[in-house]
Structures are given as C-alpha cells and as structure tokens.
C-alpha cells in the first residue's frame, strides 16, 4: 500500500493511521465482547431493588439487549462513530458528558507527571552518564530501580503520610473546593509526584544508557576532535540523539500512567477517568465502563501515534522528502 504514495513519508503516516484505526476498532470489538459476556441479568443489576418487571423489560429494549449480537455490535459501532457512547444507567446522562467532565483531570495529571519525570529524569540521566561509575551514578542506579519497582499507590500512600500529615505542608485531597488555580496546582503536587516517581527513575536510566551509547559514537569523537566544549557536546550533540529512544518510551509511558492514575486518583480523591472506570466497575455500570475505557484506549493510541510521527520532527532520517538527496 506504500506504493500508492510517491512520498515515503506520506506513506508512513498513512500506514500508521490505518493501523491506529484498526487498533481502535479491535479495541471496540473486545470491549463489546466483554459486555456481551456479562453473566446474570443486566437489567436487574443496573436498576436496583425497586425495579418492576415491566421497567426491566423496557430497559432491555431501550438498551437493545434483546437484539442478536451482530446487530448490537453494528449499532455499537455506529453509535460510537457518531460520538455516542451510550447513556449512564444511573444518572441517565450521556456517557460522553461524564467522560468529558473528568477527562481534563486525567489528562492534566498524566501529562504533568510525564512532564515532571522528563524535567527531573533527563538531567539525572545525563549526570549519571557523564559521571559514569561515580558514587552518584551508583546511588542513582539503585534509587531509580527502587522508584521503578515500587507501585505508585504505595508511593502515594507514603507521600500522603509524610507531606500531608506529618509535615502538614500539602493538602490531602487532590482537588480543591473552589477550583481556584493556585490551590488546584498545590493539590496536584502530591498526585503528580506519586504518579511520576517511577517514571523519573525510568527516564533517568533510559537517558543514561542511551547517552552512554551516543557518547561512544564516532560523531561525538568528531565533535571532541574539533575541540567543542563538553557542555556543548553533551547538551547539544549527544542529548538530541539520546532523546529519540526516550521519546519512543514516553508513548508507552502514557499507557502505564493512565493505569497508575486509577489508584492515585482514588487515594487522593481526585476526579478522573481511572476513578470513573473503577466506580463504574463497582456499580456494574457497563455503558460507563465501556465508554470510559474506550476513551482511555483512544487517548493512549492517539498519543502513541503522535509520538511516532513526532520522531520525524527530531530525526531527519525519517523526514525523507523527495528531491533532496544528492550524490557526490
């Protein structure tokens, strides 16, 4: 199919897009299959104690649960494509609205966690790579593995105990009552740290190893042979190359963070997609589970697509455009 495109880059983008669409469709089928497998009577579990049989019957018809599977799958696809993720059986509101109201919280939390881990992890990794074998390098090696190994909910608990209770520096709850910006930002510190801790370690290690690899490359020797300062070599020449694997990892990172966010959101009583899914699971609120999980998947897949495509912004070797290559 690449042949269809004269421009290789365009072909790459197109095939990535196609894969992304296929993945999202696959995820939809999987989600649909899951909810179609629900044991027991969905109406009873959703409508609660006072549900009369007539109500249950109408509910089933309303949800289209009396239709054959393929019809339901077809309808599900159609609905999702028109932006309809179904109706929350408890509040009667469209799932899209629910998801939209909590999505910003999760997005802000995950992205600030990613941002923080890059902000801290990258300098740590550079330091370790340029001071290879030093005491700080060894300490960092242990600390970063420890950060990676400890689950974020454990870190969340300890951050809460230390900073909110013992030291009383920061609030317990992850969102403010007023929605005032400064207060809101203050309340994000602990959740962000809890979520980012593992990634700080992860990125530090990744940057360290790719920096070490890059620093051994011939072009770095060239830069040295021309007397360029170590600073310029490290931060300009080597860092850009070392960034490529780091960026690749960030895409996957979003997925991990979205998962970790569930627990962090619960511990800090912060609104978010993860908590929405968790609570919907406890209530067996399937339309919400289905809709919210689908949004998480789409978010994840789209971020990965963007990450993949953004390599080309950094690495000119992918940014091939016709007519520029030339012979000697």
């Amino acid at each position, binding site marked *: 199919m690449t042949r269809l495109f004269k421009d290789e880059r365009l072909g790459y983008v197109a095939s990535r897009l196609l894969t992304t669409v296929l993945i999202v469709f696959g995820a939809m089928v999987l989600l649909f299959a899951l909810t179609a497998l629900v044991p027991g009577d969905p109406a009873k579990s959703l409508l609660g104690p006072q549900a009369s049989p007539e109500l249950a019957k109408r509910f089933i018809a309303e949800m289209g649960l009396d239709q054959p599977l393929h019809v339901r799958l077809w309808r599900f696809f159609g609905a999702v494509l028109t932006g309809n993720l179904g109706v929350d059986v408890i509040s009667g509101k469209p799932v899209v609205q629910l998801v939209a109201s909590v999505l910003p919280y999760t997005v802000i939390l995950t992205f600030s966690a990613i941002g923080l881990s890059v902000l801290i992890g990258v300098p740590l990794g550079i330091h370790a790579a340029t001071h290879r074998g030093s005491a700080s390098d060894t300490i960092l090696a242990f600390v970063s593995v420890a950060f990676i190994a400890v689950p974020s909910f454990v870190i969340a608990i300890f951050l809460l105990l230390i900073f909110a209770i013992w030291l009383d520096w920061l609030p317990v709850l992850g969102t403010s009552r007023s929605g005032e910006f400064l207060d809101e930002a203050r309340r994000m510190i602990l959740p962000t740290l809890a979520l980012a801790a593992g990634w700080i370690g992860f990125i530090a290690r990744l940057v360290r190893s790719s920096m070490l690899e890059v620093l051994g490359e011939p072009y770095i020797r060239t830069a040295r042979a021309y007397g360029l300062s170590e600073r310029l070599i490290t931060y300009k020449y080597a860092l850009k190359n070392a960034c490529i694997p780091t960026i690749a990892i960030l895409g996957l990172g979003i997925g991990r963070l979205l998962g970790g966010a569930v627990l962090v959101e619960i511990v800090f009583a912060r609104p978010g997609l993860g908590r929405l899914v968790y609570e919907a699971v406890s209530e067996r609120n*399937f339309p919400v589970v289905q809709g919210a999980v689908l949004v*998480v998947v789409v978010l994840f897949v789209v971020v990965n697509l963007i990450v993949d495509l953004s390599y080309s912004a950094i690495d000119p070797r992918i940014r091939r455009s016709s007519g520029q290559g030339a012979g000697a």
Partner: protein
Amino acid sequence: MNTLAAILATLRRATGSITGAVGFTIFVLVILAALFAPVIATHDPDALDVMNRFAPPSAAHWLGTDHLGRDLFSRLIHGATIAMSVALSAIALALAAGTVLGILAAYLSDRGERVILILFDVIAAFPSLVLALAIVAVFGPSTGVVVAIVALTMTPHFGRVARAQVLTLKNAPFLEAERILGASGARIVFVHLLPNIMGPLVVLASMDIPVVITIEAGLSFLGLGVRPPLASWGTLIQDGYQFLSDSWIPVVVSSLALALATLGFTLFGEALRDAVDPRIGRER
C-alpha cells in the same frame, strides 16, 4: 551437563555486579518464603485473635498483629506464596500463548501475520490496569481472573519477541540444512526453534515478574484481586492503610515487603538480561 553449565555460568555473570547480587539474594529469599511459607510462618495466617488486635512486635508475633489479631509476619510470608503463584502462573500462560502466536506470526502468510500483530496491538492498547478493571467488571474478582488478565496483557510482549527471534533464526543455515534433509515442521519447531528462542524469552519472563506482582497488588489493593481470607500483599497494604490510625506497622511492613520483592526481581531480571543479551526488552 551442558545446559546446566551454561545456566550456571550465566548466573555467575548476572550476580557479578552489586545490583545483580542484591537482586539475586532477594529473589532467592522470596522464592524460599513462597515455597516454604507453612514452615517459615510462625502462625496460621488466618488464625483470628480479635482480642489481641494491633499487638506490637514481640517474641510471639515478630511483626505484631493486624486488625483482626492475625500474625503479620506469617501473613507476609504467605503473601509471597500468593504473589509468586499468581506471577508464575500468569507468566507461564503468557509465555506459552505468546510463543505459539509469535511462531505462528513468523510462519504464517502476510495476512495471518498482520492479524496476529494487530491483535497484539489491540491488547497492548489497553493500559493493563484499565483492561483489568473492565474484565473484573464482567467476571467479578477472583484469583483466576487476575491470572487470566495478567496473562492476557503480557501475551503481546512475549509474542512480539518470540516472532522477532524466530524471524532471525528462520533462514539460519542450520535450519535450511534440516529442511533440505526433510525434517518435519514439528521437529524444526520443537528441536531447533524453541530451544533457541527460549533463552531471551525466559529472561524477559523474569523481568516481567515484578510487573505482574505490581498489577496483582494494585488490583488487590482495590479489592478486585485475590479474595479474603487469602492475603496478597496488596490486600495487606489496603488493610494496613485502612487501620493506619491504630498502628502504622502493618502498612509500612507490607509496603516494604512488596517494594523489596519487586526491587529484587527487577535488579535480578536486569542483571540476567545483561548477562544474556543486553538488547532484550530494552523498550520496557
């Protein structure tokens, strides 16, 4: 025996560094605790003594007791059994499924390969804890569901590596020779392919153990994992956290146990990887 010698040599290389040695020590301790929990534990982990709740550490209860007066040390030790059995069974499942799918992908037609790869991508598109929540929503929580979920989320990982390994081996001269000599497909797969791709996969599996332990602990922390009275480390942390105001010991000790185990497994797994082939599993 040759393989044994090779394994021992790899182990020696892996434990050569400080981090590797520390990791290996923790690894052995956790495995021992998991295997011999009934012998090591000083009490029945489920024996209640409500009158003696939150007892401080003592000669009778090394780490004190929890909110129902159960012996914390014994519960932690038994927690290792649960963590390890969930981790090992999930990884074994994922390893088996991943290897089969990976080999299939490498040998199937283009279309078949694409289907399998897209399937991997679809599964990998769900953050594992989120997929776990969705599945628990349908089937309800139980140890079996936890194992199944973790196995499912790990399968693409093994599958991709297995496929890549097979692709590099597929046209190797010794396989060509076998094929020309008329060896059956099964013989090629079982005698030649599997032994050759297993090394990296096993290393990968060892690196995945801490990931599995973390997912299981997270689910149990949410009350969606292992069922009581079985005590997973995640459950112990949740219990300890809920009764934090009564005693800080349970939550701290059980968090430490979980953290130490995952730390040890991570260190050991990485040392093992570096000893076998530093390029495996770098993307994780």
